[in-house]
């Protein structure tokens, strides 16, 4: 098999970045849309002489909630940006995965997909490029989701294994009719991403995939 070209990897990483930016934009837009309608309703009620204390309090509570949710997205994005931009060749895999899952929450909800995480305590830092890692995890997550009908679940298990860190994706639920986890090209790109991380991608039975990374401590 010919080696995976740099251009293919670059496309995969760009596609991941675009997907993340799209998710953030969509979610923030939704928060702002709710805020706008809430403020608009307050103005409508005031103009109609129908503004009351209870309604105003409810509106303020709604605005506060939406602002909090928007700030969470900004914090998550900021954390992700920090991980991606970190120098030193190591990163906190558990935090990075947590940020990724946070950003993909709406996508998962729209697929009626439950994503759960089990993270070992005192997980060491992982070696490698966090951008490649997150790109790979996102691709595996999307691939796994494609094998499941709505209502499925993906367990992400991160644990130390000797000098390595293992991230396992365990899909569970009714299989989607005629679905394959990923195509051959996708598999090659995923394996290459893992290799460039200094690790390995392993496929096991039942659609389980495991990313092995070297621990740096």
């Amino acid at each position: 098999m010919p080696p995976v070209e740099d251009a293919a990897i670059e496309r995969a990483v760009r596609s991941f970045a675009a997907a993340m930016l799209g998710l953030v934009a969509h979610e923030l837009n939704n928060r702002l849309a709710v805020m706008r309608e809430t403020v608009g309703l307050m103005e409508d009620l005031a103009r109609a002489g129908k503004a009351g204390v209870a309604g105003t309090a409810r509106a303020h509570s709604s605005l506060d909630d939406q602002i909090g949710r928007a700030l969470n997205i900004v914090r998550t994005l900021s954390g992700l940006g920090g991980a991606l931009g970190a120098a030193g060749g190591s990163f906190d895999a558990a935090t990075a995965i947590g940020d990724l899952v946070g950003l993909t929450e709406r996508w998962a909800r729209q697929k009626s997909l439950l994503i759960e995480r089990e993270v070992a305590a005192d997980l060491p830092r992982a070696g490698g490029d966090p951008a490649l890692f997150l790109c790979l995890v996102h691709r595996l997550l999307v691939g796994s989701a494609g094998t499941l009908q709505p209502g499925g679940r993906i367990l992400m298990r991160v644990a130390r294994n000797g000098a390595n860190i293992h991230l396992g994706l365990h899909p569970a639920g009714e299989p989607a009719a005629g679905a394959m986890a990923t195509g051959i090209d996708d598999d090659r790109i995923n394996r290459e991403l893992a290799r460039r991380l200094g690790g390995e991608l392993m496929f096991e039975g039942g659609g389980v995939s495991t990313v092995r990374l070297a621990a740096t401590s």
Partner: protein
Amino acid sequence: MFGKKVIKVLLVDDEVEFVTTLGERLRLRELKVDTVFDGTQALAFIAKAEPDVIVLDLKMPGLHGIDVLREIKKTRPKVQVIILTGHGTDQDEDAARKLGGFDFLRKPAEIDLLVRKIKEAFQEKVDRVMSAIAFAEGGDIDDAKKIFNKEE
């Protein structure tokens, strides 16, 4: 109100707070508004009742808005559909218009613009019905049916 007719609007969006608040604002503007929170609920609603205009989100759990629009046009072709989405692409807009969507708006839309579009959609529906009646009265039943069912 539109003349003496109260325009019946169905809002379809999985963002509960957004669609509930928008519904209240539209009711203050004398529209009769129902809200549902996904495509399956929308199709169940129109199986029992026919709104004049549906304001439909695209990205929802379960059925995508384009699939919901397709189904609406099969079962209730006279119902006007306005897409209101925060995530629409040019391809989505093309697909919606080809399926007979009346308009394609991006969230958040100015309330006055949305109300204007709802009224325009309703007026188009009324004009179509009147045109069909005119053809039927003239004996041209086939053309009357086509106009009524939005086949031309």
